């Protein structure tokens, strides 16, 4: 049984560990790094609660072996806030639109939304539904989640329009992670 020395940049910080072949990225994040914002809903790729951003793309972290992630860059929900705790527009929009009920799907949904808006800044409601089709929610019926992502897209676009350089400018503004 092989062991692997891995180093992964997680939320901007290099994290190193020795892992077994079987360990998944989800287990690495939750159990070794204690980033429990990344949720385990099934551990077999059917629910999306474990979604993180992996080398710029949203992936189900339960479907990546930790050893495969050596050298990768990972962003989890914990890395989305600004350094002073400022919320990302997507997080704010989820709160304001009532897109959060039990909250268990929420971190995964938000990461999927982030990856979507990074690649497609003005998605239609239909495109949003496709993007989140791998993230199950049992509470909301998805309506307010779609609306929250739509609102976040509008807000991010207007923040970018107001201020091309995209920095914290005070209350109400949020950091955009590249």
């Amino acid at each position, binding site marked *: 049984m092989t062991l692997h020395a891995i180093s992964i940049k997680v939320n901007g910080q290099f994290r190193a560990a020795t892992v077994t072949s079987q360990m998944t990225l989800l287990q690495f994040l939750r159990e070794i790094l204690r980033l429990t914002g990344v949720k385990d809903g099934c551990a077999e790729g059917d*629910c999306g609660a474990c979604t993180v951003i992996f080398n710029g793309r949203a992936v189900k972290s339960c479907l990546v072996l930790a050893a495969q992630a050596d050298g990768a860059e990972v962003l*989890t929900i914990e890395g989305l806030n600004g350094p002073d705790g400022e919320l990302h527009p997507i997080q704010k929009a989820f709160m304001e639109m009532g897109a959060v009920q*039990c909250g268990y799907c929420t971190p995964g949904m938000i990461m999927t939304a982030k990856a979507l808006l990074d690649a497609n800044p003005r998605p239609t409601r239909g495109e949003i*539904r496709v993007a989140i089709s791998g993230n*199950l929610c049992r509470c909301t*019926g998805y*309506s307010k989640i779609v609306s929250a992502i739509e609102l976040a897209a509008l807000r991010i676009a207007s923040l970018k329009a107001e201020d091309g350089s995209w920095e914290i400018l005070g209350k109400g503004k949020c950091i955009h992670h590249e």
Partner: protein
Amino acid sequence: MSSEYPQVNDLIGSRSIRIDAREKVTGQAQYPADLFMPGMLYGRVLRSPHPHARILSIDLSEARALPGVVAALCGDDLPEPGLYGLNFPDQSPLARTGGKVRYVGDGVATVAAQTPQAAEAALNLIRVEYEVLPVVSDMRAAQSPGAPLVHENRPDNILHKAELHHGDIQAGFAGADLIIEGTYVTPLVDHAVLQPEAGLAYIGDDGRVNLWVATQWADEDRRQIAEALDIPKERIREVITAIGGAFGRREDISVQIILCFLAIKTGRPVKFVYSRTESMLASTKRHPFEMRYRTGATREGKLTAMEIELLANVGAYASTSLVVLNTAVTLATGAYEVPNVSVEAKAVHTNASVTGAFRGFGSNQPNFSVEMVMSKLADALGMDPVELRRRNILRTGSEMHTGEVLKGGVGGIQSLEAATARAEELGLRPGRHRSSGRRRIGVGLACGCKNIGYSLGWDDHAGAIVEAWPDRAVVKIGACDVGQGSNTVWAQIAASTLKLPLGSVSIARNDSDVVPDAGSSSASRQTFVSGNAVLQASLEVAEKLRALGPNAPDSAFPVIAEVTYHAPKTFPFDSNGQTARPSFGYGFGCQVVELEVDPDTGDVRVLRVVAAHDVGRAINMTNVEGQIEGGYLMSQGYSLTEDYPLKDGRPRATTLAAYMVPTALDAPEIVPVVVEEPDLHGPLGAKGVGEMTMLPTPGAIGAAIHDAVGVWIDELPMSPERILRAMGKL
């Protein structure tokens, strides 16, 4: 809460942001699996692979000897009788030598080990000798003489029977111009909560066992843990974590007894997290029902009689089946007034998944049948399906088949009118066949009625403590926020009454050492019962603050009030199912569904939905809409795609890949309509909505499918296969 968030002066009816939203969107909310303690052990349970078997022997020696394993135990290590159960104790968390396992997933033995891998390996080293017994897989076969007994200490497999007679059923049919009969069937379905069952237990410095868990009713957990482990309830402290959905699934014991047992036996903290497969195997499901309805109506569309048979599948253990069956009887005629009714209901044991509480609690199944009957009657009479319902829907002054005369807070006609009006604006007209060429589009409508609260004579109550200072307040209440937003409702009620900003009211951690029992988060009761407790306590505190005046010294604070609110009295059935008042309130709803059926494949695509629900008064408008949207979609899954089939008691699949919960692409655009017909007794006129949102959906979808392709599907899920078969294409 900072001033980042919009300030709303009039909190009641506002769209205030949920007070726990921030911790959930940042990933800081802690669900039980997110907890870690030094020296923590990992608990696992070995579960029966057989639907029905006697345990001849359990050999734990190899498991115990594995390095890293700290304990390996089975039912023989529990005190006698070591049972639990919500209606009565008939279930053991672990099997005993000479005892039985009664469904695939029944607990056999448990281990606690230093790593998850060691715990998993230990399970594989437990040697159990089973004597496989014949499986009782069918409700009808379960009732035949000589059928194997699921529980041998009973004379037969019938757990419970209930009967109801109202009016004169023979006269009712004699006065009918049209009589229709039908059989309706609903399946086993799973709650599929996103967060699998989990908890952590440890022995505190004072020697008491501390349990951190996601549940629906802490006080009842503690009562059952105490009974099963034969320890005083006061020795158990239960703290509620964030909860990842419940819908009734967390009403029954899952990890609680095992965790406390392992913590006591090992003296170490123990964490136990279900896998998804384990969650699907082990936990409760919705009762499958087989229902026969014989209905009479005049040619003017007035219902004259309903003769009803209800058969509910209890599965292996009773859970809440007694009350579920009673609920089904109480709501057997759905949202309508029927002057002559007879109901015969039975709940029968089989070697299947334990069926228990699931959003609707025995009302969904009869409501489906009633709505299909109404749609068929409208069709047979050539009458507008909306008009037929208008002529029969329960109103203030109506007499229910239980004998209760409704006094007020009845939002049936209002929901019907609100739904149809909004649907009309969107161009949706139920029952107007719209197919053009290949596209078969149909629009269907249905209503629903669900009671609020425990009902039938239970003393439904909740305790709340409000503590206030001049600039802030704390609410202490044992109500579990399972995701529906109850904590936010208490904060809004207290803040509004005490004239504080919402951000200045906090809800104390749900810790049994600190907060009073508020009953379960079920029966759509929390806003009503706990809301009244919080309102009354807040009013008392407001009064005390006024009496203190503006110059009170610091030592006068906090001002405290503790209230136990008892809901209006209800009464149990007599032998004819009659009672002056089975429930203190009802919620009504009406949904209009537009869908398309593919005539070659039977595939159904839901296009648009209007869902109007009468909530008395919306305390938080966004959260009420969220209940409507979420409840509709959960019920769409129930109606079209969800099914947990068993073959001779064995589940055919136990993954979320096989269990078809709707995705974002299966969900239509849902238009929620909130109807406010103030309740007579609810806090500020509010009542409940959580379960009502599921009731009209199967009937509306059934009506829409008929509108689209001319067939009635009387069995859920209304699968493509069933649709093609009904169309004569299979």
